């Protein structure tokens, strides 16, 4: 065992001491020093332990909040009581063009607002009425998804039967989604369930009218703060035609025609690898994982993509890379000296704990800890080779563990979510939200990198951190 590994292990053992025996044993599997020689060290995608304060959400959050929510020309009904839809109401920053309430329903909260009588007598009748009312009031809604909340599965409502009947009656697709919050161990199963429901009810129902050799779909970009638009611009500059985005600023037709593209370009592997694998098996469409954070990864991704296309794309790729080189260098020149050597701890979901590493490194920063809220072993397998030996890896880290790790490892910036933000800021630590880009963005693409760099600089070098100690205490 190397010194770095032993040192990290010692810190971990010390942190885990507080737990009861059973919990300690379980948590020890999920928090390990990175051992680059020995394969992926941490266990993942297992149940969270009761009472420990996990950051994880639920299957509903994965389906309605992540995968389906950004599909803008459909109404996504939070089916059940009022809360789930309320908390996920316009809180994920999936930007979408179109007029809200007319042909864009992303910033809306449609709910069946279950009352006690619906729990007792069932909500299927009510659901039928709701679907008709949606059709009457929102004639441009191309379809409706029924996002099940916990009670639906527990009281035995048959939303599939209602959806089938009403699809026929109303002539638009009504998609039942069984994403009750108690299913699975995190939002991850919700992603999978949502992918499957797109596969079963939407995929391939329409054909792309005009095809070109450069048709691609961008999979797993949710257009947070305009991310997908930045990527679309970047790809189109080279000559690709982005036929569909899954699912940021997305449309029902866009999802339907995706089997007609040449290549699926996947960004968030965790939430959408399922549909890529399906399209590969059923339609023979290849897919490729890319990373559009920071110039190093963008360049590598674009070159890898170009390999799949003709010489004109390859030439254009080099041209475009060259065109943006000086602008990226300017960003690095401006910020790198201010950020060089700064240590980062990352705890996010989806793709970010690995995909943002390159962007931080482009600015001279170093990752000293990384973890996923709801990653699987294939996420960690992709991550650990990117990190140094002894870096701490943590899966579904508990609030307590994260706090203690930060106290002991002393990063210069913590990059995580809203629930963590103010805990670490109270400790006097710079922090950036990496789910919502802290209401900034985009962070993807050429455009995104300059914003990313500015934001990291602003967080780490804000003069406000220097105000914490009163002069009479110094």
């Amino acid at each position, binding site marked *: 065992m190397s010194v770095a590994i032993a040192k990290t292990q010692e810190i971990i053992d010390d942190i885990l001491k507080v737990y009861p025996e059973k919990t300690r044993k379980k948590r020890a599997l999920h928090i390990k020093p990175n051992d680059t020689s020995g394969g992926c060290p941490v266990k993942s995608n297992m149940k969270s332990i009761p009472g420990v304060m996990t950051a994880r*959400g639920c299957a509903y959050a994965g389906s309605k909040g992540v995968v389906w929510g950004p599909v803008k020309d459909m109404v996504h009904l939070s089916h059940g009581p009022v809360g789930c839809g309320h908390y996920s109401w316009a809180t994920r920053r999936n930007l979408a063009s179109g007029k809200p309430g007319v042909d864009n329903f992303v910033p809306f909260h449609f709910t069946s607002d279950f009352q006690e009588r619906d729990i007792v007598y069932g909500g299927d009748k009510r659901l039928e009425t709701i679907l008709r009312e949606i059709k009457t009031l929102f004639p441009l809604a191309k379809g409706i998804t029924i996002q099940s909340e916990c009670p639906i599965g*527990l009281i035995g409502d048959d939303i599939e039967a209602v959806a089938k009947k009403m699809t026929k009656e109303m002539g638009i697709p009504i998609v039942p989604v069984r994403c009750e919050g108690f299913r699975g161990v995190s939002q991850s199963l919700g992603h999978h369930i949502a992918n499957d429901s797109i596969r079963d009810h939407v995929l391939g129902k329409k054909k792309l009218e005009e095809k070109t050799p450069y048709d691609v779909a961008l999979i797993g970009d949710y257009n947070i703060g305009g991310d997908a638009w930045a990527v679309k611009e970047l790809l189109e500059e080279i000559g690709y035609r982005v036929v569909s985005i899954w699912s940021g600023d997305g449309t029902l037709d866009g999802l339907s025609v995706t089997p007609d593209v040449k290549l699926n370009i996947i960004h968030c592997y965790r939430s959408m690898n399922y549909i890529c694998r399906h399209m590969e098996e059923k339609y023979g469409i290849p897919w490729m994982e890319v990373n559009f954070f920071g110039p190093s990864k963008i360049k590598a991704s674009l070159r890898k993509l170009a390999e799949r296309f003709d010489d004109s794309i390859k030439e254009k790729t080099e041209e475009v890379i060259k065109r943006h080189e000086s602008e990226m260098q300017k960003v690095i020149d401006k910020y790198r000296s201010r950020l060089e050597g700064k240590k980062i701890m990352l705890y996010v979901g989806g793709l970010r704990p690995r995909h943002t590493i390159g962007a931080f490194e482009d600015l001279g920063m170093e990752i000293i800890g990384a973890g996923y809220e709801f990653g699987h072993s294939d996420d960690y397998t992709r991550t650990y080779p990117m990190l140094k030996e002894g870096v701490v890896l943590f899966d579904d880290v508990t609030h307590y563990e994260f706090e203690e790790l930060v106290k002991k490892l002393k990063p210069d910036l913590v990059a995580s979510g809203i629930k963590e933000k103010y805990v670490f800021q109270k400790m006097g630590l710079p922090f950036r939200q990496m789910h919502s880009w802290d209401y900034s963005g985009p962070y993807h693409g050429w455009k995104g990198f300059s914003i990313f760099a500015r934001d990291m600089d602003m967080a780490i070098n804000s003069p406000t951190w220097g105000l914490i100690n009163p002069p009479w205490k110094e």
Partner: protein
Amino acid sequence: MSCTEIMEWVNTKEYQELNFKREALVINPPKACQPLGAIFCAAGFEGTLPFVHGSQGCAAYFRNNLSRHFREPFSAVSTSMTEDAAVFGGMNNLIEGLQNSYSIYKPKVIAISTSCMAEVIGDDLNSFILKARELNVIPKDIPIPFAHTPSFVGSHINGYDNMLKAILLNLTDGKKGSKNNKINIIPGFDPYVANIREIKRMLNLMGVEYTVLSDNSDVLDSPQNGNFEMYPGGTKLEDTADSINGIATIGLQKFSTMQTIKFIQESFGHEGLSIYPPIGIKATDGFLMKIKKLTGRTIPEELEIERGRAVDAATDAHQYIHGKRFAVFGDPDEVFGIVNFLLEMGGEPVHILTATGTKQFGEEMKVLLGSSPYGKLANLYTGKDLWHLRSLLMTEPVDMLIGDSHGKWAARDAGIPLLRIGYPIFDRVNLHRYPTIGYQGVINLITWIANTFIDEVDRKSDDAHFELLR
């Protein structure tokens, strides 16, 4: 119909009629669910860990929501129930959850509320807690109040009420003793930390002893001093226990803490009453007079001077508010308070909308509106949502919308400013640090409303009408 045609159609009276015919679909309702209110209440007691029994996503959502509004940490644990708990019940999750959370966080109280899953499967919290104690996984004497708070009954304001009742029931049990000299104050689901501080300041000026139940003002506004504290304040447990021996209990939200007030009336043996929220001059006068009556204390000159300053602000700025038309939405008590305030300024509420609201609320609002010539235009809509409100704003325009951040789309469509008052406010900073109640609150409300109107005039004026004096 084309997109352009529909854009016009959704603004018509015809659309409004269809919209109001809805029987089952709810669109953008301004209400959250019970457990959010429950953990908000629980966090206001010393060393108390809010503990949500149900699916883990619920707790994650509540914490996100509260942290976004207050821009503060919010600690709460979950029992992370999954499929097996759906089949076998949540006892193991609850017991394990109590053991783990106690080991890590050493709370003085664990306050359990439930989310839908536990309620639908009918978990018996009391017997589970007894079992946990029997198994010695938590100290025998740690108080564990619990409240049933399903999302399919009421809203966040009821969750607050149920949790507060549960905590008082638990902590005051067997504590009846000699009378103390204190008034108990129940703020209710109030998203302004400054409001609790303002109440305390006014009571201090009067020399009144008090206990605020629950006081989350320090918990949700802790200082930046380089340290994160898990339990930064809250009502002392000793004071909570002793609240049963107080002189009286006053709820500052008439329609929001009815279960708790009823419980107090039945078991504290002292007067338990609810008043209208002290928003506006007259309502603040009413609050102070009530305190005076209950405690025999006089209202000091400082407060009278303060009152005079607030009235001065009102007379100085009346011209910017008088005759203006308003739409107001939110929780019943807050809406009641704001309407009351507008009426005394000569503002004219036109659309008043709540997602919840009892029959009694409706009746008392009608009395309030009837008491003022400025209330004549007003229509009250209870059990309605912000898509209804949008129709109203398009067919019967007003000058300003008052409500939480979710009103921003309707206000934008109607081309009017949204004055952010209520919960949640996700898109402006620090508003919760300014009181809306008391005489200071009057000054703040006048400042926000009048200056917003003046900003609009400046923004919309052509060169000829762009003036220095406003």
